Every structure is written in structure tokens, then in C-alpha cells.
């Protein structure tokens, strides 16, 4: 069997699904953030795979992955500083505890 585009895409779909599952079910905010990183990576995998299989010789897909990575970094930094800030206030990282605005 030779490596084909849909193998990579299937892998990315599975990783994305795992990420979705994590984002839906982790109690810990950090767990959610990590799951989101998984989803980001699934998307990046797709981009690189499309680049490799559909447009060989070009690098546009890879350039977009660079953007994805950069934005993921920005997202993670802001998210983590928010988590830290929340932790300072309510001494917990569990989502259901973050209900200060809840009546």
C-alpha cells in the first residue's frame, strides 16, 4: 500500500475528533486548551497534506501552517494567562467552578 492523500486526511480527522472529544469533556481548562491545540494540529496536517499531494512544488499550504502555528501561539499565550488570572481569583481550573457571572 502506498501512502495516499486520504490516509493523511483520515489521520487528521481522527486527531480532530479526539480534540473535539477533549474540548467537550475535560473539566480542566488546561485540558480544553490542549485539546484545542490538537485540533489546530489536525488542521495543519490537512494543509500540509493538501500542499504535498495536490500542489507539489508549491509552498502556499506550508506558509499557511506557519500562520496557524503563530496564531496558536498567540491563542495559547492569552488563554494561559487568562487561566492563571482566573486561578488566582477562584483557586480552581475547573470549568464548572468558573461561574462568577452565574446568578
Amino acid at each position: 500500500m502506498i501512502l495516499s492523500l486520504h490516509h493523511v486526511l483520515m489521520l487528521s480527522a481522527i486527531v480532530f475528533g479526539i480534540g473535539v472529544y477533549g474540548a467537550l469533556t475535560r473539566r480542566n481548562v488546561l485540558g480544553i486548551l490542549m485539546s484545542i491545540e490538537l485540533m489546530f494540529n489536525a488542521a495543519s496536517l490537512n494543509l500540509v497534506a493538501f500542499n504535498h499531494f495536490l500542489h507539489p512544488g508549491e509552498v502556499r499550504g506550508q506558509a499557511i501552517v506557519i500562520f496557524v502555528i503563530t496564531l496558536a501561539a498567540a491563542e495559547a499565550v492569552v488563554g494561559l494567562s487568562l487561566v492563571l488570572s482566573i486561578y488566582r481569583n477562584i483557586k480552581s481550573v475547573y470549568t464548572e467552578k468558573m461561574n462568577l457571572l452565574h446568578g
Partner: protein
Amino acid sequence: MVDYAYLIALLPFAAAILIFFFGRWLPVKGAALGILACLASFGISFDLLMQVLDGTLKLPHEIHYPWFEVGLFQFEWGVLLDGPSLVLVVAVSGISALIQIYSVGYMHDAPRFKRFFSYLSLFTAAMLALVLANNYLQFFIGWEIMGACSYFLIGFEFERDAAGAAGNKAFLTTRLGDLGFYAGLLTIFFVIGTFNFTQIQNHLHDGNVSTHMATIIALLLFCGTVGKSAQFPLHVWLPDAMEGPTPVSALIHAATMVAAGVYLVARSYGFFLQAPQALEVVAWVGGFTAIFAATIAVTADDVKKVLAYSTISQLGYMIMGLGVGGYSAGLFHLTTHAAFKALLFLAAGSIIHSVHTNDLWKMGSLSKQMPATFWTFLSGTLALVGFWGTSGYFSKEMILGAAYGSHHVLLYGIGCAGAFLTSFYMTRAFSLIFLGDPRERDRFAHAHESPWSMIVPLMILAVAALGLGWFMHAPETLERFFPMPGRPDAAVPPWVGLVALGSGFLGLAVGGALYLGSLTLVGQLASAFAPLHKLLKNKYYIDELYWAVFVRPTGKLAELLAWFDFNVIDRIFVDGFGQAASLWSEIQSWIDDHLVDGVVNGSGWSAESLGAIARRMQNGFVQNYLLVITMTLVALLTAMETFVGKH
């Protein structure tokens, strides 16, 4: 010069940003910068106007700059210079500059002075960008920025609750209209695939748009106009907008916000021409608004409210003019109205500045104390009532002529009645302010003429209000600036104009007779027609109606749901079903309470299930929202696979 046309909008925009951030260190706290920017815009646009008059610049002239691409569609920003846009740009930048100069005097000791000028500049920039836009997208951006600015400026003195509420009201009401406008934009893009005015015009010309579609688009766009230009039934925000500082009122009413709505109809005239029914709707909404607002103005006691209702009424005229096919007449009136309404507002501001009240009945005999204001207000009044020879005379005649010429005799009659009412209430306001006896000695004694920075703009505007008509009324001039994109104006018999003029004079006479005398007759008349007077005084109870029909039920519903959140659902979820029995009794008692209170919302069961659904959707638990998103994603993917099929 024409290549720099985009600077017209860009300069005030830059000024707004500079004032906002660095105003503290600029001369006159940044006001000088805003005025200079506006004057520069005025200079550029005036120069362009002169070029057009010389014949060195051919209209229309379009400049494109690529902006971004989505798929096959290219978006651009650009400048479309044609007659209407050029005339309006000149008017807007000129009036805005004058208003800013005036504001330096008017606002000199107000707090947030710098921010005020920043907003004024941004407001002007947005309007200029809108007027110059060569596509609907840019138009819409300017439109929305103006919406935001109006919110900031009407609620500028937000320390007073009324001002804040008025800002909210203006924003939300116009937003209701914007919804239609937005839907119209989407429809245009869906049907035609471009936002560019010229291209759309070509498509319309080639008959690529069915009458059916054109009607839908035209009516949706007209929703935006109804909101922005304060037409019935969305006119309610405009009188309340008087809570803003007077220069703001002048800017909103004369040059920027409300003009945008009329301009929208003019820009989209191609759609309306394809859709005669839509045009009919426009004409009747305009005509109804014209007479409707005029009747309210008759009983208003606040000088600014009188002017506000007169604005609504005049806007009705313009809309009606456009609706009956008088394209050039409507735009002409827009231009002249900008001049004399700005004048009237600024003069009213000068009066308020001097006597510190808005109430007509507390003024009187001010002509002696404030001669400059008196004369300028007088010229504004004459222009507004359409006194022979003033600018208002020419434009209003044209609108009425167009109405008659297109066989809308009833609208013509309404227009004449409106003219009568206009003369009447303006005479009333004018007499109460300037003539007769001073009714409050204290105020009268302390009244004084305003500073030069306020008077000079008034004088310039007075000249414009009186002279603009002579300058522009010739058919060839109008043809040059407002070339009719459809049928030509029909010829009308001369008596049509005379009747309109006559009804104006009649208004003057009746008003003078009533209000120059002892004023006792006025009181008697008011009590004789007490129900009518009360109805007018309360503005036909429109506000109350809206409050009862829309605002209160929404509030009640929110209260209801909130109550459920707090008392029913929380407990079910917290205590579990073990305490269902006690909860049940609570629900029962609650239903009793609310039934007694008169708020009926079906039975307790339906309310409970409704609340439970609302509660499930809004439980403040982020991952649950995420679950919903995921569900939707799954549904979409499934739908895609099922319906779109395999490639």
C-alpha cells in the same frame, strides 16, 4: 486634483484619530485641527465643483482601488464623483466646518471637549466616505460608523439619563432599519454579485434584474432609509435625539445622518425605477410622514422639538419627491434643506445658549437682545416655509410640481397642506421667540448676543439659505448636477406652484394672526379642540404604543425567564428531582402571582418547559455551548454529504 478626491473623506478621519489621541496637545484642544481638516475637504470638493462648472472635469468620474478578494468576487474601495455626490460633499464639508467653528463657542466650557470634536470629525468623515462611495459596502461602512457616532454624540451628555436613553433609542431604532438595509445588501450581492454602483446600474440597464427582485431589493433598502431618515414609523428617535448638544442636532439633521437615508434612495434609484410599486410605497411613506410630523410640530413647545419635527416633515418631502419621480427635485431639496436647517438649528442653539431654556413660552421679544440671531433665524424660517425667492421656495415647488406632474394629486394636496402647516408652526415659533412681549423678565434681561465664533457661521449659512436657490434652480444646472436616471420631469401648469405658495402665505397669515396677538385666542382654541390638541401634544402616542407593544413585553418576558432561572430551574438542577414536590408548589404560587399581576404567558406548564429550554441553552457552562456547536457541525457535515453529494 481629482485624483486626490479620496482625501475629502480621509482628512477628517485622520483628524478624528489625531484629536482623539493627541488632542490634549493640539491648539484649541484639537478643535482647530478638525476645523482645518473640514475646511481642507471643503476646499478640495469646492475646487472639484468649480472644475465641473468650468467643464474641465467630466462627470461621473470613478476611481477604484482594489481592496480584497473573496473567491471570484473582487471588493474595492473607491470614489464615485457624480453630480449628487459632489454637491453633497460640498454641502457636508462646508456645513460641518461651520458647525465645528460654531461649536468652539458653544461648547467652550463643556467637559470632554476634545472627544466631542473627535466625534464630530469622525461623523463628518463617515458621511463623506458614504457620499463618495462607489459601492454599497463602503457606503454601508460609512453608514454604520455614522450610526455609532450618532450614539456617541446624542448621548454625549450621558450624565443625564435622558441623553443616554436617547442615544440608545436612536441607535436601536436606526438599527432596526439597518437590518432591512443589510438584508437588501445581501440580496443585491446574491442577485447581481457586485456592490459597485456603476456595475449595478449596467446590470439594471441590461435588464438582468427582474421587476420582482428589484421590488424586494428596493423595499429592503428603503427600510434603511426609513430608519436613518426618520420616516414613519421609525421616526421616533429623531425628536429624542434633541438631547444631544445643539451643534450635534444641526449636524445630524442638516448634513449627515438623515441626509444619508435620502441619499441611499437616490443612489439606489435604479432599483426603484425598475419597481414602480416600491416607488409608490416610497412616495406615500414620504407624503404621510411630511404631513404627520408637521401636525405634531404645531403643538411642540420645545424649540428644538419644533425643528426636529420640521426636519422629519421636510425629509418626508424629499422622500415623497423621490417617490413621485422627482429625482432632481428631491436631491435639490436635500441640498437646500441642509443649508437652512443647519442655520435654524445653529440659530436655535444661539438662543438656547443665551436664555438657557428650550421652552418657547419662556422666551419672547428676543429680537432686541439678539439682532444677529434674529435676522439669521428669520432668513432660515423664510427659506423653510418657502417664501418666494428663497432656496426652500424653489426646491419645494419642484417637489410639489413633480407630485402633480406624475398624477399624484392627493400627494400634491398633502404637500400643500404640509406647506400650510409648516408656515404656521414656523410663524408660531418665530413669533414666540422673537416678537411679542418678554414673558420671563429675568431671562429677557440676561439674554445676550452670542460670540462671534457662533454668529459668523450663522451669517454664512443665512446667505446660503437665501441665495442657494437662485444659484441652482435653473433647469440646466439641475440637469448637470442631478441628471435624472429615468423619466424626465413632467411639465406642470403654473397654478400648481402658485397654490403651494399661496398655502404657505396662508400659514404665515394664520400663524401671525394667532401668535402676534394677545395669545388668549390660542388658549381658547386649544381648549376648544382639547382631544385633538392632546393627541398632537403626545405625538399621536406613538412612543407609548411602541413601549406597550414592543418594549414592555420584551422586558416582561426577560423578567419571566430570569425569574425561572432564579427560582425554578436552579432548584431543579441543584436539589434534583427529590424536591420536585416542593418545587411544584412554588411554581403554582408563582403562576398565581403572575396571573394576578396580569402578565399572562400561557399555562405554568408551557412556561416551565420554555424556561427549561432557555435554561438549557444558557446555562453558563462553556462546554455545553461547545456541544451545541459540535452538534451543528455534525448536522452540517451530514447535510453536506447527503445533499451536496460526491464530487
